[in-house]
């Protein structure tokens, strides 16, 4: 699917550990994501999936190990963390749109403040991405006036407006009503087809099968298994992955 020999790693995590107080939330995480690669992360609730991807843009600080984003090391006390964050788009489970701003203002805020783009230019860019996620008609509305699925598509467009090199998704469809999920997944599949580098925490097996180059299975703060999606879903190696998959399928 992907020729990894020619590509460079955009995200490189080596030996990363994280504690919450005494509790070890992540232990010895090693993961490289190549340019253009799509990685799906799954695992039981509380296994540290969110914590891991949130360390990449330092919404959470790691205490040990190394994280490189496009060759630059990311540390908790770094000064120019904003320059890293603009290369790393993030989409949250609960959308987190700014409710006091119109959809359009939600999208142009980042480019204007972080990249110093003019309002006109930012607006053009925002409308381009709103059209891509099919929300352009709602640009002047406020987030609470939109359905959950629409809000999540706006959140994706907001992240894309920063022209990031890699996109992180933290369970983007698990807060949605079932009939809204397909619309959001379609946008993500399209994004994947355009060659975006993506790290997606999700339990949508259909999506993983379709776009993922690799599936990362986590449990209790560790990466247990990394495999091609077909292999992982049909023939998981570890007992914990087998248990997880059988529970996911409900039998």
């Amino acid at each position, binding site marked *: 699917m992907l020729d990894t020999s020619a590509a460079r790693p955009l995200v490189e995590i080596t030996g990363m550990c994280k504690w919450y107080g005494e509790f070890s939330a992540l232990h010895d995480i090693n993961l490289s994501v190549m340019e253009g690669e799509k990685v799906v992360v799954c695992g039981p609730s509380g296994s540290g999936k969110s914590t891991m991807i949130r360390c990449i843009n330092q919404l959470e600080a790691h205490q040990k190990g190394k994280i490189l984003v496009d060759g630059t090391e990311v540390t908790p006390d770094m000064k120019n963390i904003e320059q890293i964050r603009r290369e*790393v788009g993030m989409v949250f489970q609960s959308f987190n749109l700014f409710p006091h701003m119109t959809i359009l203002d939600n999208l142009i805020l980042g480019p204007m403040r972080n990249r110093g783009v003019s309002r006109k230019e930012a607006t053009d860019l925002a409308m381009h991405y709103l059209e891509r996620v099919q929300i352009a008609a709602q640009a002047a509305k406020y987030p609470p006036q939109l359905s959950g699925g629409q809000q999540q598509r706006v959140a994706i467009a907001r992240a894309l407006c920063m022209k990031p090199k890699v996109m992180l998704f933290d369970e983007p469809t698990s807060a949605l009503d079932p009939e809204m999920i397909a619309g959001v997944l379609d946008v993500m599949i399209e994004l994947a087809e355009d060659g975006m580098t993506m790290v997606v925490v999700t339990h949508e097996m259909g999506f993983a099968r379709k776009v993922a180059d690799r599936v990362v299975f986590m449990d209790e703060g560790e990466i247990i298994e990394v495999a091609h999606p077909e292999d992982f879903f049909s023939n998981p190696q570890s007992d914990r992955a087998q248990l997880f998959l059988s529970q996911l399928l409900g039998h």
Partner: protein
Amino acid sequence: MDRNSPPPAPPRKRLTPLDYLLFGSVAALVVYAGYRVNDVLVYNWDWSRVLGFLVRFDEDTGRWIGNLLLTGLFTTLRLAVWATLLATVIGIVMGYWRTCENLTLRIISRCYVELIRNIPPVVFIFIFFFFISSQIFPAMGLDDIDPDGALVANPVFHFLFGDPRLLSNFLAGLLCLAMFEGAYVTEIVRAGIQSVQKGQWEAARAIGLSRTNVLRDVILPQALRKILPPLAGQFITLIKDSAIVSLISIQELTFLATEVAATTTKVFETWILVGAMYFILCYSFAVLFAWFERRAARSRR
């Protein structure tokens, strides 16, 4: 049954005999109190002298002009407006510090709030007044300001800050009140900031906003919207609390009322009138703010 028929009328609320009894006893109490003052204290009611201190007829110009009490009312209003503005600025800075990660800032703001909340207001104002009148104002050169200078001797200045000759007196009261109320505004702001969901901080940081921008563009606008109603309530509280600065001779309504009561010896009339003035002022603002709030709620749908 016809679906289009109107719903039945709600039962009418009637006053029961018990309610009448209650009203009756309250009225009786008031009449009795009046009777005691009149007949037992042998008090001569005379409203005209006191009302003369509200407005009086100026023989020279042939016009009605405001007298001491009305001047005091405006000073109180000016004090309240400026002190609220200043307290809001203090409150936003301190309230943000209360939620900061920086330990030093958190300690400073926490000390400020706890200090003021655990000292009686009067005591605080005596201490603080001594400090500003003996240290800050001389340092600012406020004591030797020229009351006839072009900067201060104009109607705009007069409207905003009152009589220039009383400027340092006014500012002393203003600072005391603002410092004092600032602690309460700090807590309102802190609650407002903390009521904004954690996800808003994260989303704002994730699109690469700096700390200042996160606060200015995302958190404060949402927090301020939530704290506007309690802030309006605090403004009304401040109008009432402002009476306390009469103790350090700030020439506002209560201070001037003390003087009027002393010169006229009409104690009851003066304080009843002044009470009514405070009531009208505060209640008007309460009604106004309630109206704004309803309108804001409606426009938000």
